[in-house]
Structures are given as structure tokens and as C-alpha cells.
């Protein structure tokens, strides 16, 4: 009887915990380490420092939240570090898609995002599909038709084959049967330079990186990788609206705790970052960087991550990448 009741009780407790996060018992008494997988100045470092600055300025936590850089091997060094802090309520990290992707293709990357304690997803990053302003391609459909007529001749610049740029390309190629090349460049500057110099025909880029080039008359946006149109680009269709019904690939950022973090600590951090997401400073940062701020709580984050990992695994298999997990 007791055995049969316990799942229901556990569910009840879970509901109670998420309904009253203010009653969390954990209260930090020493500095919190906020682990970042990029080096100083990388996108994810800037993002985390913005969060920690807001926590500091708005006095949302009684202690300092110190950003700690653990760069190397995609997110592997950072994930290993988190695993070494098992159960520690003072270590949290800022994750992105790479935390999910790396263990899927790398045997040596043994610490998976699922092993961490999910706290919250903070943003989803949209992207723009851009061409040179004087490019003959006015729409995505024109580009795809040209690619069909000249298989393998047209080129996109982007990051590694695990990047979202390549994922979207793979999905579009599977959908349409067209074929074009993907040229990997390690830094955003080189990707932009390749398009500006006319060495590739198109690229997928963060809105914040492209917006000045568009304003300066160098680039033209022909589609956006997003569920809905961004406020800054009301005239640019989403890929779906452009006539290509492929799944949207979210590029996410969020917070996880060290593996095995106590539910009280998880609840504390969930509440802390929820407060951050409500501040005007954070909302301004989101608008300035063209980010979608949809706060997803711990309870929903876990099933989302498991689901999303499955989607990514299928996409990767489709791209011909070697999937090891």
C-alpha cells in the first residue's frame, strides 16, 4: 500500500516545491562559482558576466556570484569540473547546446548535461540567414533553386559541423534535395569576412553580429531561424514562412547545478535566476542582443533536455556525423 502511494506523494511534494519556491531553505553563505565553458570574452562568458553583474547590482544574492572560466574541448573541461564538484551547492554553470552535443560525438566527453542538476533555461537565440546586399538571391527559395541547378557549387560559411548553421543546412538539404557546401571557420570574424569578401554566398549568423552589417548596407537578411519574427526584423520571413517546413533548432542558454545538487539548492537558484529575468536591466540586455527570453523552470527543463537530445541525435545521424552515445 505504502509502495503504491509513494509516487503520488513524490509528485505532490514536487508540485508543492515548485509552487512555493520562496520557502526554499537553502541560503548561500559563501561565494558561488559560476562556471563558463568559454574563455574570457566569448559569447557565453559575456552572457554569464551580464547575469552576475545584475545579481550584484540588484543585490539579489547575499554573496558574490563569481564567473570562473573553464575553457577547452567544447564544453568538456567545464563539464568535467562540474562533475568533480558533485553535490556541491555552490557550483553552477551556464550551458548551451554544445553541452548536449559534445558527449554525443566524443567518446572522451563522458559528463553529459543530463548528469547535471537542471535549474533553468533563460534564453533561446534566434538567427538570421543573410546574403551580400548585391546578391542575386532575394529569397531563400531562389538560393535553393540555384543550389539544385548547380549541386555542390554554392557555399555557406559557419562554425563546426555541430553548429546550428550546419544543422539547419542539413535539414534544408534533406527537405529539398538541393546540395551546397559548408565551410567551417573557427571565429565569427572569419565567417563574416568570408561572406563580405564574396568567398561564400550565404551564412547563418546571430542577429547581434549581422545587424550593423545590414544597417551599413553590406548584408541583406532573407530569412530568420526562429519560431516567430523578431521585433527588429518584421519584414523578414521565418524559414517556415519562406516555404520550408523544417523543425526549428533552438540555440539555448541556461543554468545547471553540479550533479546531485540538493532540491533546496536547485529551488534557490531557480528563484534567483527567475528574479534576474524580471529585472529591467536583463530585459534591456535581451532587446539589445536580439534574444528571446523565455524562462523555463527546472521541472520542465529536464524532460525538455532529454527530448532535445533525442532530436539532435537524429539530426546528427542524418548529417553523417559519428554518434557515439
Amino acid at each position: 500500500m505504502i509502495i503504491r502511494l509513494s509516487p503520488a506523494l513524490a509528485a505532490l511534494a514536487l508540485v508543492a516545491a515548485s509552487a512555493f519556491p520562496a520557502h526554499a531553505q537553502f541560503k548561500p553563505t559563501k561565494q558561488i562559482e559560476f562556471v563558463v565553458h568559454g574563455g574570457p570574452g566569448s559569447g557565453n562568458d559575456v552572457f554569464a558576466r551580464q547575469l552576475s553583474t545584475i545579481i550584484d547590482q540588484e543585490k539579489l544574492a547575499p554573496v558574490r556570484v563569481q564567473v570562473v572560466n573553464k575553457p577547452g574541448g567544447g564544453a568538456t573541461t567545464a563539464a568535467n569540473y562540474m562533475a568533480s564538484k558533485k553535490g556541491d551547492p555552490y557550483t553552477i554553470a551556464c550551458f548551451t547546446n554544445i553541452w548536449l552535443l559534445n558527449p554525443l560525438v566524443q567518446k572522451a566527453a563522458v559528463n553529459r548535461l543530463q548528469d547535471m542538476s537542471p535549474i533553468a533555461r533563460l534564453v533561446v537565440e534566434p538567427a538570421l540567414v543573410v546574403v551580400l546586399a548585391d546578391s542575386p538571391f532575394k529569397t531563400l527559395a531562389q538560393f535553393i533553386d540555384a543550389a539544385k541547378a548547380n549541386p555542390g557549387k554554392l557555399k555557406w560559411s559557419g562554425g563546426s559541423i555541430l553548429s546550428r548553421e550546419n544543422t539547419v543546412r542539413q535539414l534544408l538539404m534533406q527537405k529539398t534535395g538541393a546540395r551546397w557546401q559548408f565551410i567551417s571557420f573557427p571565429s565569427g570574424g572569419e565567417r563574416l569576412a568570408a561572406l563580405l569578401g564574396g568567398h561564400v554566398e550565404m551564412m547563418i549568423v546571430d542577429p547581434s553580429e549581422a545587424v550593423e552589417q545590414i544597417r551599413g548596407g553590406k548584408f541583406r537578411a532573407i530569412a530568420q531561424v526562429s519560431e516567430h519574427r523578431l521585433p527588429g526584423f518584421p519584414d523578414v520571413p521565418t524559414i517556415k514562412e519562406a516555404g520550408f517546413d523544417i523543425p526549428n533548432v533552438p540555440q539555448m542558454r541556461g543554468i545547471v547545478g553540479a550533479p546531485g545538487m540538493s532540491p533546496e539548492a536547485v529551488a534557490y537558484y531557480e528563484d534567483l535566476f527567475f528574479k534576474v529575468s524580471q529585472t529591467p536591466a536583463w530585459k534591456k540586455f535581451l532587446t539589445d542582443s536580439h534574444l528571446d527570453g523565455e524562462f523555463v523552470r527546472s521541472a520542465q527543463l529536464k524532460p525538455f533536455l532529454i527530448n532535445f537530445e533525442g532530436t539532435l541525435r537524429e539530426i546528427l545521424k542524418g548529417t553523417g556525423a559519428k554518434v557515439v552515445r
Partner: protein
Amino acid sequence: MDVLNGLLHGFAVALQPTNLFWCFVGCFLGTVVGILPGLGPAATIALLLPLTFKMDPAGGIIMLAGIYYGAKYGGSTTSILLNIPGESSSVVTCIDGHAMAKNGRAGPALGIAAIASFVAGTFGILALTLLAPPVASFALQFSSPEYFALMCLGLALVVLLSGPSLIKGLMSLFLGLWLTSIGTDLFSAQARFVFGQSELLGGMDFVVVAIGVFAIAEVLASIDGGEKARMLPVPKGVRNLLPSWEELKACRFAFINGSVTGFIIGVLPGAGSAISSFIAYGIEKAFSKHPEKFGHGVPEGVAAPEGANNSDSGGALVPLLTLGIPGGGTTAIMLSALVLWGVRPGPLLMTESPDVFWGLVASMYIGNVVLLILNLPMVPVFAQILRMPVHVLFPVILGISLVGAYGVGGRLFDVGLLVGFGLLGYTMVKLKYPTAPLILGFVLGDAMERALRQSLTMSQGDLGILVRGWISATMLACAVLILLLPLLGRFNKARVQAIAEGG
């Protein structure tokens, strides 16, 4: 006279007392950061960024840029004195700079480094002032085949770095090429040669490898050679602490070479500043009347690479300020700093924010003078470090090296790697293998491989793409010529000998 008006406006901004103050702060911090190995300008700027949120954008960018180019000035100090490259751009300076120090010319070497940095740094800014827009469009013509050719040209310099045996030099180079391929491959996202070590997935840091095979190996070799516990000669008297007139005269061509080479390569977003110093050194040696003296402490061997890496700073700001394209880690952070201050970096920056653009350019002229004034008086002070007896000096070198390696990523694993590379370097020195080609391969190999694979993806496997453009074809031809020259020379010598014997 748009440029003149702009520059006058810029000086009006840069000469405001607060901006002058920030310029000085940036240059000072940059010098310190440059001297400390392991702590780079990129990390420093990122750490200081939150402090600048409230600053005026012109003052902020003036300070951050000061850290950026100031670090290049400081980087030569430990290279020359202790054979520890402080930054990747100052690794070439170790070769002749440290040799000069061992000959008792540490002061002059430091002085020449400072003067070359000043001359070439100023040239770089002058070129940035006058030529920015046309030079930026030239840089955009560089596609992957051109980068591949540039890297090949750099690697061909192995001929000039290898000493008596070209075979040993090539083997050292190939070892460097292999070491740089360790880690995650960008194209396939697969790990290469990591042997199950997740710490190796990100590859090895340049600082760890270079400090290992240069500084640690040198200490080990000196101890082993029974360095007779003697001090390095540091002559007394101010005259011996500053470069002599003859030494400066010998550097005439090196100043020009470093300035021009550094700027041209600095402008290219995918090149990086290490290659500019390698190529400037190569040109210097190739055109020298006494190439055999290179590596034994010639002042040109310090002036050319030090000039190049400072002129490179001016060049690297061209794509950043005119196009909004960052060429490397440090300029990428400067770009995000501009965004945080509400400035919009991109093609419109020059016209929309003249205060920032011209203020920065003008402040760099001032900053170079500040750096010269900061650095020259420090030369005698730094030169005294070598007065320490070796039983004090060697532990100091080892200590700085270990801290530098740990500072790269805060991992003990890197310290272990450092020790490993120290032993490797020591073995190479004992077996008379040159270590500089290894570093050359390590620095350029990654970029070369990438450019080759990008080119072949673009052309769907057609090798012809590598020689179709005139820029890449010319550079590849030069590379082949440099590689073949010693063979021709040997052939010629043999022929002359044969004729002599026959006659």
C-alpha cells in the same frame, strides 16, 4: 583633408585630461600583462570590462586598446631576459633576444625591442589613419587559398630557422605540425590523438608548449652543462645598458621591414600576430649580409619581430573599426565592449561615432610615446635581474614558467604538459635538434590545415584552386623558392668544388 580634420578632432578628444589618464592606465596595465606569461591581454580586458560600463566610450576604448598594444611591448621583456615568451607574438624574440642577453647585451636588446616597438607601432597607426578603408577591402580579397599560401610561406621559413641540418629542422617542424593537430577537429568534430584524455580535447595551449621547449629546456640544459654556477655577464655603466649606435644602425632595415610586414599581415582577420613576427624575422635573415650570425644574438633579429608584432596591432584595428570584424580574441572583446557602451561597431562606425574612431586613433600615437617613456627607463632595472646567481635565477625562471602555464586555464594538467615539453625540449637540445621549427609548426600548422581543407571544400577537391588567384600563386612560388634555395646553394658549392678539383 578629411583625414586631417578627423585626426585633429581625435587629438582634441584624446588630449582631454581624463582620456590621457585612461590612455596611461591602459598602457601601464598592458605592459604588466605583457611581462607576465599566462595572463594575456584578452583575459585582462574581459576582467576589467565590468569596471568600464559607466565610462565614456571614447575613454573606455582608449584604455582597452592601451592594454592591447601595451601587452605587445611588454611581451619581449621575459623573452629576452629569461627565454620565456610572454605572449605568442614575442616567441621569435626569444631566439636572438635571449642570445643577446647571454652575450651580456640584455640592456641593448631590451632597448632595441622598445625602440622597434615604438617605430613600427607608430607606423602601424599612421597606416591605419591614412589607408584604413582601401586596406580593409584588400584584406577581404584574402580567401582560404590565400591563407593557405601565407601559412606555407611562413612554414618555408623553417629553412632559415633550422641551423646546420635541414633534415633535423624539418623533423622538428613536423613534430610541431603533429602536436598542433591534437584536439577536436573543427571540420568533423572528432577528437584526434587525445588518447582518451578529455583535457586534450581542446588542444594544447601555445604558451605551455613554447615555455616548455624554450625556458624549461634551457634551464635543464644549462644545469646539465654544468653552467659553472656563473652569472650571466651584465656590464656596468649606463652606456652598456642602451643600444650602441652601431646596433641601431644595423636595425635600419629591420625597423622598416617589421613595420610594413606587421601591418600587412595584421590587417588579415585570419592570420594572427605570431605569423607576422615569424615572417619579419625570416625576411630579415633572408636579406641579411650575415645570415649565419642570426640565432647568436644580432640586434636585427630582435628589432624585426618586435616591430612586426607592434605594427600588427595597428593593422588588426583596420577590419575592426572599418568593417566591424574582429581578427582575434582580444579585438573580439573590444568589439563586445563597444556594443556594451552603446556604440555600434560596423561599417558606419567611422561616420556615426567619430569621437570613438578618431579619439582612439589619436590616443594610440600618444600611447606609443607613453609606452616608450614607461619602458626605456625600466631597461636598466630589468637588466639587473640577470645579475642574480644561477642558483637563484633558475628557480625564478621555473617558478614563473609554472605559474604561467597554470594561469592559462587554471588546470594542473597544463603544468604536467609543461614539464613534458621541457623534457622534450631538453632532449632536442641534447640531440642538436633546433626547437624553433617545432614552435613554427605548432603556431602555423592549425591555420594551414584549416585553410587547405576550406579551399578544397570550396573547390570540391580540385587542387587548382590553390594557384588560381595571383596572390596565392605568388606566395606559394616564393615558398617553394625559399625551400629550394639551400639545395641550389649546396649544388652550386659542389659544382664549384668539382670544377676546382678538376682544374
